[in-house]
């Protein structure tokens, strides 16, 4: 290989440059931009653990949707035994009132565009809401 030293040095420099954000946040301990969803003030406990909701709320919502719409089942028993009515509009959004302050924060950050909002509504985000 010709110019092996230059190529390798160039590649190494390139790698360092494109991974710079990771090094930066590892060194300083803070990310440049971080999603900052606003948690409800009235309720401290979600349906499942915080970690599960972070990882898998979309799976939970899909299960809820299928159970309610297709199987006519409406009660969810969470891991700690609490019973909830399965409803995005009337259970989730009773606490997470503002989509823009909660859902959209991470979705926008991640470039996610879930189609929930084509039909479902939050109380504050739509013009003409009663």
């Amino acid at each position: 290989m010709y110019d092996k030293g230059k190529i390798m040095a160039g590649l190494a420099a390139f790698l360092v440059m494109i991974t710079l954000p990771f090094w930066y946040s590892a060194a300083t301990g803070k990310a440049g931009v971080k999603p900052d969803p606003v948690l409800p003030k009235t309720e401290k406990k979600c349906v499942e653990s915080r970690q599960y909701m972070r990882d898998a709320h979309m799976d939970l919502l899909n299960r809820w949707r299928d159970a309610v719409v297709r199987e006519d089942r409406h009660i969810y028993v969470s891991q700690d035994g609490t019973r909830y009515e399965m409803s995005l509009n009337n259970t989730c959004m009773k606490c997470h009132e503002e989509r823009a302050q909660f859902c959209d924060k991470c979705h926008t950050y991640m470039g996610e565009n879930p189609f929930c909002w084509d039909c479902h509504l939050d109380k504050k985000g739509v013009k003409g809401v009663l």
Partner: protein
Amino acid sequence: MDESRRAFLKTAGCAILGAGLAAPITRAVAGAVSADAMPGELTAGRWAIAVNVRKCLEREDCRACIDACHVAHNVPLIKDPLREIKWIWKESFKDTFAAESHPYLEKGLAGKNVLVLCNHCDNPPCVRVCPTKATWKRPDGIVMMDQHRCIGCRYCIVGCPYGSRSFNWQDPRPFITTGIKPEYPTRMKGVVEKCTFCTERLIKGLPPACVEVCNKVAGPGTMTFGDIRDPNSEVARMLKDGFSIRRKPELGTEPQIFYLV
């Protein structure tokens, strides 16, 4: 070289498989959907509605049931008949009961408008033609719609002989002039919608919105909702006591909206 490529492909394959398996496993930990009914939920072997046509016609201009339904379900008001959305509406007697119409029809019915809605057929053609199972018949007879799964092909609209289904040719939200109710979702462009016998109210122990308001405005018995399999239910007794007809029964769809004439 061959060996290392082989080893690389093996490792990569295992890694992909591992990642694919790990995701559902780590997500599987959570609670469960209960088989219990909601407290106070209304259940039936077979839901049906009886409409007392003559009592309804006493108030020809009444729109109480239509307004109650359309407000509760965020149904848009679109004037263009090619694009309009209807869950419950009034149709001329001639078009509603084509086989029962003739030039010498009694004055009280001729030229009058009859209340119509989804018939929640026992043998629903819409269900038969739906390619995605977005519409199906529940065990209690309600012909249900899953807007999440509807692809907007409109076969069901062609299949339904009663015109009970509407297609969203555009985003309906700008046309919800009465104010959107956030408790109930709207629909999106490109899906079909229709009456659901108010499944969201049944689980709260409430009858359909149209029946509830009708009984308040026009008096009890104008619209009667109930379990037709239960011989002691009001709807079953009414049908036993008076003569009733159904829309286009000759098609074999077994409609479950009964008209007391």
